[in-house]
């Protein structure tokens, strides 16, 4: 059955190549698949792929660790304190709908261009899915487990490390996985919009220097990167937790 999925992309590639060969396209916005492949190989051979990939991944990872970590930490605290959850409801509901791209110029003013700008913006974006899904994960813990922890007289840290984290771990991993895909998306978006580094920036500059084959080659690499990160984390989730991580219903998140 799997070959059927290949028909459409393969057909599109063959058709595009045929059109390019027959009509001899000389365009600033289109390139034949063979030219794109040559450009992709060129990026791989001269190492520029790894330079831009490294910049993007470093920013995404930094933001994921800071923002996602802070979100999970707050989720843990709120998960254990219903009072705090209710008190912070309004501030959280008021801040969450701010689109992450809107904060970008604020960080630009503070940090200027570079890694700090990108990491700060990715952190802001990763914070929310991590907080919301983390909270859902912790509120999904069997209440009897928490009662047991109370009976055992565990302190705050004891409850977190011995009961809450082990019980909620599969779903916390889901939060981490979704925050990771947000991180990559936002990092590329920041690079496309403003920040002169990484894959997003190279994509933009290939476009503005009218090299469509390079532009499509980078687009291909961005797609492959996103897909591989997603696939690797999904695989890790299945290996580590089986079906335990599955969330019921749609999952809140943010995409750009």
């Amino acid at each position: 059955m799997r070959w059927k999925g290949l028909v459409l992309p393969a057909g599109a590639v063959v058709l595009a190549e045929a059109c390019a060969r027959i009509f001899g396209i000389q365009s600033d916005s289109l390139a034949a698949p063979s030219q794109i492949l040559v450009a992709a190989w060129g990026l791989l051979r001269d190492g520029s792929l790894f330079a831009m990939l490294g910049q993007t991944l470093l920013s995404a990872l930094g933001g994921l660790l800071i923002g996602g970590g802070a979100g999970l930490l707050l989720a843990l605290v709120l998960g254990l304190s219903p009072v705090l959850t209710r008190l912070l409801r309004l501030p959280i509901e008021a801040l969450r709908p701010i689109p992450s791209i809107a904060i970008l110029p604020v960080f630009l003013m503070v940090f200027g261009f570079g890694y700090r700008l990108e990491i700060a913006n990715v952190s802001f974006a990763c914070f929310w899915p991590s907080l919301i899904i983390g909270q859902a994960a912790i509120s999904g813990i069997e209440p009897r487990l928490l009662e047991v922890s109370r009976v055992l007289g565990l302190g705050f840290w004891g409850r977190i490390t011995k009961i809450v984290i082990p019980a909620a771990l599969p779903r916390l991993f889901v939060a981490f996985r979704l925050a990771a895909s947000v991180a990559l998306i936002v990092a590329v978006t920041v690079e496309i919009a403003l920040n002169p580094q990484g894959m997003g920036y190279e994509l933009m500059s290939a476009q503005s220097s009218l090299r469509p084959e390079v532009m499509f080659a980078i687009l291909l690499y961005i797609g492959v990167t996103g897909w591989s990160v997603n696939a690797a984390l999904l695989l890790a989730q299945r290996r580590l937790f089986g079906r335990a991580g599955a969330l019921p219903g749609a999952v809140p998140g943010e995409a750009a």
Partner: protein
Amino acid sequence: MKRLREFGWRAASVAVGLGFLGLWQFVAWRRFVNPVFLPGPIETWNAMLDGFRTGMLGERTLATVQRMLYGWVVASLVGIGLGAAIGSSRRARDYLAPTLEFLRPLPSSAIVPVGIAFFGLSNAMVIGVVAFGSLWPTLLATIHGFAAVERRLIEVARMLRLSRGAVMVQIAFPSALPDILAAMRLGLITALILSVVGEILAFQGGLGSQILEASRAYRSPELFAGVLVLGMIGLASNLALSALETRLLRWRAPR
């Protein structure tokens, strides 16, 4: 008694929110943070009112909201139509789903340069990119919703000799609706983000241009006013869609 307690909690939460605002005002007033970067909440609020009074901010807000809504409406209609067609046919799913799944993790902002290459730095480019980017959540959720219709419902429909079209409209669509609405909400946020990205890159006016210009010129009250308005647009669209969701899904058994 219960309502009173609920009200009390809400009031306490508002008080905490006001407390944060007060803290922000205090930090700005005592200049703990360089005032070039951080205006106080009152200054931000005044900048926003000034902006609306002169009409500039209103015009830009309208431009951004228009782009967001045009793109989102087109994306939702195409997404639901195409998704219904693909989702209800096993063969179409076999051929198309792998390609769509490969494209799903692609950042939708990555098609901005492609859009520029084809349409130049124009308004049409921004709307096209918004529509294309916010298409994915709705399209994929509709495919999933139509594919996951309870088998027994389809069997009942067959017993009742409903036509293919009637099955899609009367059975598959309502059963996919929760998925579709959740995705449309995500699509609307994506549309807002892409409108701003498009405006930042294409200098087409709107709030994206406003916040970028204000940031470049270190006019932080104006910048924060723009961020505030964008946050309110996000909040309003979220609330509107939740209200729509509750209304359209009233027929479902309460959970």
